[in-house]
């Protein structure tokens, strides 16, 4: 039990003394989550919007596929990405194995269904009357789309935050594709796994708390933005 308390003090110590190993892991975590989230939002929001906004013949089927992909096991994604990026794999030439970019690719696959499904739901659950009202106000097609997006912003932000939480806390992909290489691809989560394997439980708890603090910071800034707009 006492390693919980030790971990708490250790977390404060790591952050205040600027422990280079911890900050390297924080950096790796921030880089992979930022890359993957940027690509995920850029691809996922338009797709999610289309899925929620337009009616087309196989909409229900697409929805089922996307919802199923929400359950993609992360270690499985890790294996898939590894299979493509290993030097014997089809994309081995790209040199992405054991890099942060490689991890980001895997995390994007993990986060895409989350953003698509949740933003589609956000757009879908908009008041049907909005469309009618906007058209009657003389909105053109582009204004119609943008206004709908704006009205769905809270749901879309929630989608982004959920995806962020998923990619930041992911460990299977980061371990398999990144290889947990010190100073390079060691993220906070793979560092926690390593410390646990080493039996350094206090250190593992400390790193977990560091991760939580980052997540707290992100959520505080998002909620600040949400209040303003």
């Amino acid at each position, binding site marked *: 039990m006492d390693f919980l308390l030790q971990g708490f003090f250790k977390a404060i110590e790591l952050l205040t003394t600027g422990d280079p190993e911890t900050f390297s892991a924080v950096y790796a975590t921030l*880089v992979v989550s930022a*890359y993957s989230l*940027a*690509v995920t939002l*850029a691809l996922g929001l338009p797709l999610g919007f289309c899925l929620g906004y337009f009616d087309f013949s196989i909409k229900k089927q697409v929805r089922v596929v996307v919802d199923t992909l929400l359950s993609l096991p992360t270690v499985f994604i890790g294996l898939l990405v590894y299979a493509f990026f*290993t*030097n*014997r*794999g089809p994309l*081995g030439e*790209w*040199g*992405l*194995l*054991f*890099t*942060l*970019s*490689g991890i*980001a690719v895997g995390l994007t696959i993990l986060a895409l269904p989350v953003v698509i499904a949740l933003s589609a739901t956000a757009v879908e659950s908009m008041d049907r009357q909005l469309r009618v009202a906007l058209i009657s106000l003389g909105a053109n097609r*582009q*204004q119609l789309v*943008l206004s709908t997006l704006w009205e769905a912003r809270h749901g879309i932000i929630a989608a982004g935050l959920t995806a962020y939480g998923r990619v930041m806390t992911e460990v299977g992909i980061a371990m398999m594709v990144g*290889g*947990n*290489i*010190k*100073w*390079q691809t060691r993220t906070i989560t793979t560092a926690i796994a*390593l410390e*646990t*394997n*080493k*039996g*350094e439980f206090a250190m593992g708890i400390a790193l977990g708390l560091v991760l939580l603090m980052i997540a707290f910071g992100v959520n505080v800034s998002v909620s600040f933005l949400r209040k303003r707009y």
Partner: protein
Amino acid sequence: MVRMKHVYWTVLLLLLASLIPAGFAGAQEKVLLMATTTSTEDTGLLNVIAPEFKKATGIDLRWTATGTGKALKLGESCDVDVLMVHAPDAEKKFVADGFGINRKEIMYNDFVIIGPAADPAGVKGKSVKDALLSIQAKKANFVSRGDKSGTHMMELDLWKVSGAAVPEKEAWYAQAGQGMMATITIAAEKNGYTLADRGTYIKYENNMKGAPPLKILVEGDQTLLNQYSVIAVNPAKCQKAQVELATKFSNWIAGPEGQKLIKEFKVMGKPLFTANAK
């Protein structure tokens, strides 16, 4: 509205562009990628070796620590340049199959059978064979690595040599599928026995502030020797394998400097490995 669209695409393109250099950045420096076993990382040995190697040669040693089974697999797939592993039979096969060259034995420690101080199966001081048979007869909890690591392969061999079938499906036999330290922790929770390399056990003793619930019960048997070797990935099979850097590393670690570092590496004042390069 048109401007927003521009901003959107510019940001997207910038982000995508920033992804690319990150992937290739590593190619500029002299980086040697090694796949190794969990014990070399968990004990902290590599954290001592890597900076000294960099000082001596300017080569940046990076490693990914997994079980020996996966490490060999990474070598077969050309994903690493060099291996530091401990499963002599599997290694010899790896070399014979043409995946590796220049296998050098660099150090050893030994395996020990550890278990609860109360020793419910009464194995203390017995030979490995009698100890395993006694654990089996008493159906005492035994935790296996179960992950095709060097330690796991050694354990399977020991069961075979003892004349006992591997108790694959027995209720008292648990396959953790995790690293050595995690497996020791599980064995401690289950009040059971396990086979561990001495290095990781000393680290565990250290973590437990010198009062570990699990003690060394069987040791010193010739069959318990745990030999570590370095193998370069064969450039004939893997064009990208940096055989030159790998050779530098294996010569250095098997040379006086590397061997001295291994000899002097201690946890709790106890040496963890014995350097034995020829």
